[in-house]
């Protein structure tokens, strides 16, 4: 499909998701070598630009999670260096990574997302925003989900079941980001829809993005208050394709593509949704513009269920660098 290229794989870095990123990067490097490309893995640090200038790659594969990999920092830098890179452009990264901004955009676009408010640390300090908390409590009710606006793992994500628990949960979330998202809790099934925007069908790069089979994350045991064990490795089993009625599957896939386009994603993204236990309503929680590529990550699982091997998937992702 493509001529051998010189590809730099960006991974690691110093974020809290460093180890996941290193694993993603190693998997991607293996696959790219398997596809016949010349691959250099770069553990991102202060000499990143120096290394890229020396290497002069044909493309940069971004397998870097955490703030700088996902929020548009590295993507902007690649544009500044005029280097083709995989995945979404800086603006889409910024929109996708900031859960609050993403939800604001979804709300404006009429895409269902659980009701929410956000508070900034500066506003709490300088504007007395703590005084707004009771009003938020009345509107969202308990339990409430409290999340750092940016951050990819379950770190800092807590359920608050009462107003006494809320300040602690918020301060916990502020440990990871200056903005905190307060969200109405939806009780339901966790779904992840991966969207591929390149090589979708034989139409090539300009075909409409397509959703891959849905992955459902099923917690092994009901641990309502314990986000970490719920989403920790080994505590969750993944089912792909998720066993859902056809109409829900269709709606979920369409919603995911809508969000993908709304945020301006390119190449690939993973959209996380919930389907309400009682009403079967679908709610979009967030988008992930640099999905994990480890052995247990959701995008590779979804691709596999669609008959796309890991190597093929990585090849398609690499294509996104040249179809911007």
């Amino acid at each position: 499909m493509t001529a051998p290229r010189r590809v730099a794989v960006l991974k690691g870095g110093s974020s809290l998701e460093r180890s996941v990123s290193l694993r993603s990067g190693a998997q991607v490097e293996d696959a790219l070598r398997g596809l016949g490309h010349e691959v250099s893995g770069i553990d991102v640090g202060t000499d990143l630009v120096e290394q890229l200038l020396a290497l002069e790659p044909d493309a940069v594969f971004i397998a870097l999670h955490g703030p700088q990999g996902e929020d548009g920092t590295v993507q902007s830098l690649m544009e500044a260096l005029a280097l083709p890179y995989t995945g979404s452009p800086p603006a889409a990264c910024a929109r996708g990574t900031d859960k609050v901004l993403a939800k604001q955009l979804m709300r404006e676009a009429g895409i269902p997302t659980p009701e929410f408010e956000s508070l900034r640390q500066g506003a709490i300090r300088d504007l007395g925003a703590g005084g707004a908390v009771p009003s938020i409590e009345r509107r969202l009710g308990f339990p409430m989900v409290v999340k750092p606006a940016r951050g990819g793992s379950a770190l800092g994500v807590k359920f608050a079941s009462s107003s006494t628990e809320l300040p602690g949960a918020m301060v916990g979330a502020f440990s990871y980001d200056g903005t905190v998202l307060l969200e109405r809790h939806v009780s339901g099934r966790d779904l992840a829809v991966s969207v591929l925007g390149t090589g979708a069908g034989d139409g090539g790069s300009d075909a409409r993005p397509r959703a891959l089979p849905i992955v459902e994350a099923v917690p092994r045991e009901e641990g309502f208050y314990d986000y970490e064990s719920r989403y920790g490795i080994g505590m969750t089993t993944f089912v792909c394709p998720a066993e859902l009625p056809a109409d829900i599957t269709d709606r979920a896939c369409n919603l995911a593509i809508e969000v993908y386009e709304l945020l301006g994603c390119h190449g690939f993204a993973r959209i996380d949704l919930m389907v309400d236990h009682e009403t079967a309503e679908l709610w979009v929680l967030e988008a992930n513009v640099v999905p994990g590529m480890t052995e247990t990550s959701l995008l590779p699982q979804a691709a596999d269920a669609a008959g796309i091997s890991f190597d093929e998937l990585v090849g398609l992702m690499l294509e996104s660098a040249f179809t911007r």
Partner: protein
Amino acid sequence: MSSQEMERSSTPGGRGTRPTAHELARYESLFAARTRGMKSSAMREMMALTERPDVISLAGGLPDTSTFPPELYERLMAEVSLQTARALQYGPTEGMAATAECIVQVMAAEGTAIDPADVIVTTGGQQVIDLVCKTLIDPGDVIVAEAPTYPGAVPSFSAYQAEVEQIEMDSDGMPIDALEETLDRLAAQGRRPKFIYTIPNFQNPGGVTMSLARRRRLVEVARERELLVLEDNPYGLLRYEGDPLPTLYSLDAAAVGRDSASDLVIYLGTFSKILSPGLRLGWAVAPRPVLEKLNLCKQGADLCSSPVTQMFVSAYFAEDGAWLRHVEHLRELYRARRDVMFEALAEHFGESADWTRPEGGLFIWATLDERIDTTDLLALARNTEGVAFVPGRAAYMDGRSGSSSMRLNFAGIPEAEIREGIARIGRAISQQLGLLGFLGSPPPPAAREGEAGEAAPGEPPAPDTGEGLADVVKLPRRPDSARGRRRQDR
């Protein structure tokens, strides 16, 4: 070999075939059930990030190895080289006889007489925990441990699918009446723990020491109920004040009228804290039937511990009194560092924090305002201040309790870094407390005792499970006089 590599070895180029997720599903079905309990928590991932040069880490379990004289190391290795062939050969599973004699000396310094034939040399003390579990634990068996417990024991217990009952400690270690209540409750369910795991001296991470009365009572209870005790004593010789207390092993041996053998205590010792963890040498002293099983399990694990390092140890112990002088030197070094940390804590941790005052060992256990989650605090402290510690949750099997506590190592780094590290954590705490204040959250009442069951008006009552309250680790809150003294110290 990764799944991709496997794939490519059959089809060069690796295209057009179906690998990974299916391979993964296949691996998943191959993994033993016990691996499901072994989770790589986000917290542990975060701990991995603290190993950076710009981060002051109070998180390690490290002793200071920089004070061991290089010329002595060189001389000892030269001596080992005189018997190169032996050093490079396999050794006996139970350990070399000369090593056991060194262990007898260390145990004697702990006031404990043992028969060298009751010793098995292991690859670090950690291997004893693993071998004891391997020997005694079937899935679902119960282990009774302290709360908090040694974080490094948690993965071993999980790997053998043990159910762990944790007993909250106070300033005298594990309360034996609470232990008995737990044993009664288990007995009512027809369950009997396989062993009781305790670190009686300068507990890791709690920093507290089990009192003599409790030691005696623990041995009695174990005897009455015919339970084994795993006595984990890595730090006993690192006492900086107060009188040494007898080991559980020696108390039991004396109680049954034998000079040198307990028949219910498995004793765990190590050279890691008194000499070097890099040697990877520890030991167990155990009743014969247990010892035989430990030996069989060790054969399956690693055949034998390294003869090179065992011979290094015997060469070292042959130097007249050198090892005792080194331990004395470590005591002085660590005592000073501990006192520096006490001072720094008093200066920087604020009135809402409290901490243990260990008489020895390597660790202080600090408990903060209950509204602070130390896992989150670690993220903040690491990112904005460049400092790391072990969040308290690592010391609890449920991964949930201990959330407002932290373990601090005072032994492994120089005094200036201890001061700076504690100051940095203090700044992160202040930031969080300041935010809590802005959010209008009232600080917890100063005296918590006796009001734990009370809920605020309009709040649902706390659940009976005690889970909501388990976050508060009830380690000693010093009397007010001590707090006053701390303020004056500044």
